[in-house]
């Protein structure tokens, strides 16, 4: 009976199977090749376009303007991000406070500025609030609301304050409760606890979102060109309307791409440096 389970004959040896075919032309490879070729073609077309339409007189005329606009963009972003950071602190605290009114107010503030387009906020501040001329003249603030630059700064600061408050709140909530308890058991006052223990840890968490927010501000700042501020976008639009030359936009795109890429790389280096104690 048990014999049925015993092999009575050897399986004769067979030649090894043919080697699995390594497909040389998979769909992915063809698609990839096609897309790389079309990127290269687009790049060459772009360079040819820029060379054939190269005009030294225009470069000389618009080059300095572009650079000037570029500086205006950077200035706008730097100032409004700084003011926004200062404003975001009380708003984030309000959002976390136990006081119902404070909490409601900062919730409303954040909801409004994050729920409406920057363009609408800019129009509301510049044209909407700017229409109450006699009132602003009475309180002596007309010089502020008349000026497109100060309104742009104001609306960008208010806008980024809302976003930064949310970043800050998320980061502070992310700090473990034990850090508060440890500080309390050491008898540290609230102020010291916050600035020396909670905030440094929160800021490391917030580093990446802060970088993203600054990049978003650089890109979002192009909107101010609509209320007649000559930032990079503003100069670009004027150059286009004067020359009807498409390359004006290409140069602006190159400028913006360089700014954003440089910022991203710098932020990576900064983050690498600031979190070096957290790496193993």
């Amino acid at each position, binding site marked *: 009976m048990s014999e049925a389970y015993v092999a009575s004959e050897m399986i004769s040896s067979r030649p090894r199977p043919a080697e699995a075919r390594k497909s040389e032309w998979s769909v992915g490879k063809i698609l990839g090749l096609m897309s790389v070729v079309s990127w290269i073609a687009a790049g060459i077309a772009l360079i040819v376009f820029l060379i054939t339409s190269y005009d030294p007189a225009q470069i000389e005329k618009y080059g300095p303007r572009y650079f000037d606009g570029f500086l205006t963009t950077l200035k706008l972003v730097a100032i409004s991000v700084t003011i926004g950071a200062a404003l975001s602190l009380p708003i984030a605290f309000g959002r976390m406070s136990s006081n119902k009114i404070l909490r409601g107010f900062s919730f409303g503030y954040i909801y*409004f500025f994050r729920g409406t387009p920057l*363009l*609408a906020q800019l129009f509301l501040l510049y*044209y909407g609030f700017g229409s109450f001329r006699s009132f602003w003249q009475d309180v002596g603030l007309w010089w502020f609301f008349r000026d497109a630059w100060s309104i742009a700064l104001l609306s960008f600061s208010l806008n980024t304050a809302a976003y930064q408050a949310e970043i800050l709140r998320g980061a502070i909530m992310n700090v473990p409760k034990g850090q508060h308890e440890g500080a309390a058991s050491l008898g540290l006052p609230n102020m010291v606890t916050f600035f020396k223990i909670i905030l440094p840890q929160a800021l490391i968490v917030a580093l990446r979102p802060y970088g993203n927010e600054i990049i978003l501000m650089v*890109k979002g700042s192009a909107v101010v060109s609509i209320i007649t501020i000559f930032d990079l976008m503003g100069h670009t639009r004027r150059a286009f309307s004067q020359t009807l030359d498409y390359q004006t936009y290409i140069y602006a795109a190159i400028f913006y791409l360089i700014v*954003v890429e440089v910022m991203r790389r710098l932020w990576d280096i900064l983050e690498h440096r600031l979190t070096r104690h957290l790496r193993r």
Partner: protein
Amino acid sequence: MELLSLLSYGDAGWGDEILSGIWVTISLGLATLPFGLLLGFFLALGINSREPSLQVSAKIFTTIFRGLPELLTLFIVFYGAQILGNFLFQKVFGINIEINSFVAGMIALGFVFSSYASEVFLSAFKGINQGQYEGASALGLSRFQTMRLIILPQLIKLALPGLSNLWLILLKETSLVSVIGLADTIRVTGIAARVEKEPFLFFSLACLIYLALTFLSSVGLEKIEKTVRRGEVR
């Protein structure tokens, strides 16, 4: 009361014009969404693929459209399509064509949306366990079946919060098409503000409309998220 009559429906007020503007805003957002989602998904597949050529070209795309301001992208697509389209059509058919600002807005916003969506999909792909692919392969499913039956249902769940965020951003960014002449909420309220000389009324109305749209969207998205997560144990 006099101010409210400006918002009435019909010839005297701006109600009907503003409603059509809201409709343009919503339809532009809804038209961009599937296009952007699909492109974003394929971009994520490209970045995830083993082919270096696909990776590089997908990365070039996302780098460009995440680095350019949306307004500039819009101008580049709008005027670029016009120049290219005119050039080609004049060569071939000898006629001039006009590029629709709605389509230009859809393409530009879709490119930007897809670049960000690819990031969301990529991190969602990272959240799916390698064992899922191995299990599917052990069951003898093809790569397409694995994607459709195993990966995609889990991917949607993981990507939904990020995509909801992107939808809210997209809804706000549709306001930029007003600059290239599309009669969306911002443009219509802007015209009304100029004609009636009531900028505060009309621009705060525009802000309220966008607030309402984002509020409704977030309510709807919460519902969708609940539906998607109904299989999870709480």
